[in-house]
């Protein structure tokens, strides 16, 4: 094993990891839930269009939502059964809003569609990307970005490193740990797919050093896979939250800092979560679209454990498997640092659901009252993006959003380190989310106003143009009429001279009409300039 030089990212905190509770037992498949509610929108990007309607029979793995655009991924029926309806259903989102979902009543048979495994090595990269999109493979570390859209190297920068993220730095969560322990070979083979697409020089699998079992399992599997995986290396990284953030892990393993708004491939590096590459493997080689994932059920429960859960299973039913204690008063989805309290416990498990934590006041004591900021700077010391959270807080609080932007609010990843250490118990991240959404709303307002303005300008232009065209048409018609009359008159004059006066008058009229038409034509281009594509943004 070569010795890789590790780098450090600034900041970070060390909350109690609380991981040991849920790793004592192997992953087990959760029982079939009573109902499945599969939200159509489960990835960053376009909302898939539903392909089924109420009453339809579906098979396990059947596509029920078609990807809408390049940045979007298909969704599938997690089991066989009947579509009860396609409707708004409580979403796994802190807002408590509903999302368009396909509600499926399982028939208990769990009948698969025809599997269509492929030999991906013989497929064109474009075809593999389409297959990944069709299989609904998205980033399962929580960001749910469609994976196929991350598999193109930069045109100018050679791919140096591919990072496989097995750091799993959030407290309580152990789904990636167990995945690596039990399915190491498939994870590595899945990473192999992306290695073949991106062709990096090295593949580094970063695992926090509090998961030695997972790292050992991965190393054993790597050895077994032999020379085809020669550029792979399993690297234990120091346990420091948020080492599992993509940018932090890239920094630790390669020393590269990917600035906000920059593609990591432009710096020759790309990062995938272990569960993502595993899903890609299942999708291509076994023809199984992404219809289930490993979920850690932990917190205030009797039996913390990892379950293989169908996407769409009600969270309350999944949490019940762990036998929550009587004082449980909510469900946290995700970890305690970045997760959120689910407003409606009937909300379904989605592709982003890595962990369900039974919440109780004893486990997570309610926040103490907020005190004034004393500018101690603890938040700045722990910020992994080296921001000045107390300055951001100061300006966010006074709604001075231009200042907030000048302190790089958009670089904030909302990891929660600042709130974690604040001696004044200020919910800093909450202020930053507020500021971000306000800035987003302001930008949206501006966009809307710009759009309205250009629409209005276009309307004005159109009306002017129509008027102009009408005048031109009239002038032209008049000219034609005059020419006609002149011709008639000329024909008549050869025989009769009695209408001489009329003939004299008509050429004059024709000349006037012609002059008007010329003038109109001169004016027209001046009006035609406002904008060629007035509605484009």
């Amino acid at each position, binding site marked *: 094993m070569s010795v890789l030089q590790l780098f450090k990212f600034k900041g970070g905190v060390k909350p109690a990891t609380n991981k040991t509770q849920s790793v004592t037992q192997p992953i087990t498949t959760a029982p079939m839930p009573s109902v499945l509610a599969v939200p159509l929108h489960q990835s960053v990007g376009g909302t898939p269009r539903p392909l089924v309607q109420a009453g339809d029979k579906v098979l396990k793995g059947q596509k029920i939502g078609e990807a809408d655009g390049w940045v979007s991924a298909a969704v599938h029926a997690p089991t066989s059964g009947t579509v009860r309806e396609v409707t708004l259903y409580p979403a796994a989102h802190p807002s408590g809003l509903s999302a368009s979902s396909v509600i499926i009543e399982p028939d208990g048979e769990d009948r698969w569609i025809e599997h269509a495994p492929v030999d991906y090595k013989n497929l064109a990269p474009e075809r593999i990307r389409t297959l990944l999109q069709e299989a609904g493979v998205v980033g399962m570390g929580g960001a749910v970005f469609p994976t196929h859209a991350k598999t193109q190297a930069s045109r100018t920068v050679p791919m140096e490193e591919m990072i496989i993220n097995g750091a799993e730095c959030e407290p309580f969560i152990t789904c990636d740990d167990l995945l690596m322990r039990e399915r190491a070979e498939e994870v590595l083979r899945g990473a192999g797919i992306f290695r073949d697409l991106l062709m990096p020089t090295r593949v580094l699998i970063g695992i926090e050093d509090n998961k030695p079992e997972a790292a050992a399992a991965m190393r054993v599997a790597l050895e077994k896979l032999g020379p085809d995986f020669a550029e792979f290396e399993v690297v234990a990284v120091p346990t420091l939250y948020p080492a599992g953030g993509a940018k932090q892990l890239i920094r630790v393993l390669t020393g590269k800092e990917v*600035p906000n708004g920059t593609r990591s491939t432009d710096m020759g590096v790309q990062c995938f979560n272990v569960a993502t590459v595993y899903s890609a493997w299942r999708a291509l080689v076994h023809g199984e679209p992404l219809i289930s994932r490993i979920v850690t059920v932990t917190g205030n429960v009797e039996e913390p454990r990892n379950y293989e859960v169908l996407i769409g299973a009600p969270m309350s039913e999944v949490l019940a498997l762990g036998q929550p204690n009587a004082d449980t008063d909510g469900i946290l989805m995700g970890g305690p640092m970045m997760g959120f309290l689910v407003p409606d416990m009937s909300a379904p498990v989605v592709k982003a659901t890595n962990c369900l934590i039974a919440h109780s006041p004893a486990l997570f004591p309610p*926040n103490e009252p907020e005190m004034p900021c004393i500018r101690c700077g603890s938040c700045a010391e722990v910020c992994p993006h080296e921001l000045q959270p107390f300055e951001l807080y100061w300006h966010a609080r006074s709604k001075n959003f231009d200042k907030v932007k000048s302190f790089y609010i958009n670089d904030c990843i909302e990891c929660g380190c600042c709130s974690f250490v604040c001696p*004044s118990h200020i919910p800093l991240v909450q202020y930053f989310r507020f500021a971000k959404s306000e800035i987003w709303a302001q930008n949206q307002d501006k966009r809307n106003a710009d759009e309205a303005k250009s629409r209005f300008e276009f309307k004005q232009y159109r009306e002017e143009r129509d008027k102009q065209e009408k005048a031109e048409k009239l002038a032209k018609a008049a000219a034609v009429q005059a020419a006609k009359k002149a011709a008639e008159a000329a024909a008549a004059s050869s025989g009769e001279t009695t209408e001489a006066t009329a003939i004299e008058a008509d050429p004059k009229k024709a000349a006037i009409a012609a002059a008007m038409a010329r003038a109109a034509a001169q004016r027209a281009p001046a009006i035609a300039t406002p904008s060629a594509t007035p509605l484009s943004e």
Partner: protein
Amino acid sequence: MTPMEFSTSPYLLKEVSVQRVMLQVLLALLPGIAAHVWFFGPALLVQLAITTSAALLAEAVMLKVRGRPLNMFLSDLSVVVTAWLIALTFPSIAPWWLTLIGTLFAVVVGKQLYGGLGQNPFNPAMVAFAVCIVSFPALMSQWPAEGQNLSAQVASIFGTAPKLDGLSSATPLDVLKTGLKLGGDEASVSSVMAAHANTFGLMGGHGLEWVAFAYLLGGLWLVREKIITWHIPTAFLAGISLLSTALWLFNSAAFANPLFHLFAGGTMLGAFFIATDPVTGATTPRGKLIFAGSVGVLVYLIRVFGGYPDGVAFAVLLMNICVPLIDLYTQPPVFGNKAKRKK
């Protein structure tokens, strides 16, 4: 679910609080207080009692007037830190009304009128010191003589006995300055020190140097506990050391050695406990270095060339004014943005 409806991540929080931070600062002051009492008698304890109770009372009244929760803000102990710093920087045999005026001014004007905890631009304890030394320069310049008993000192504080000459003495910094001035061309640092052997010790002032040493220990503990960072004390001490070393090398007869300046007057207390006040100090790493380095330089300039016996209060207040500017121009680059600096 109602109580948590608006609570958002993170749900795990470190067990820290303003109260705990302030408590640790108070603990770190204890060795210095003990040394002070050991050398200069128990008067300091009387002053601590006066300033602490007056500060708490003033804070409570102001909070009440401003309609703020009493319990939450009184128990944060920030006003106690201010009170203790006042007691430690004022002469411990100063009359009770002087420390009382200082304390009231610090809490009411220096802190609460600006908006209370976290809102004051100037270090409240230093505001008190500046106000009193400008208004009552003679009373603020005397220092207790060593080995006095409680009753004599209490009598001095409360004015119940006629003023005794043996009770007070000038500070070493004062003695040195006046000695050099009065001695004219013949006087040198060593001759003044030899003439007042009782006043000067091994490094700073006799007795005082050990109080300073105790502050240093307490301050180092604060650094270790991560209550303060190394930047401010280091830059403060470096500022004083550099300037005093340069001038001492230039003319050791007219300028005391750097060690004397490090252990005399309010250097250690200022470096670890006063300039490190987070509310009124610079916040960025580079900003802290600039801020505290300038304080150190100013302290030296004021105590050596200025009219006051020591310069910590004015140096800190002057630099407090510059903090917003320093912070603005020393914003560190953010992650992935090391090449570009904020303009």
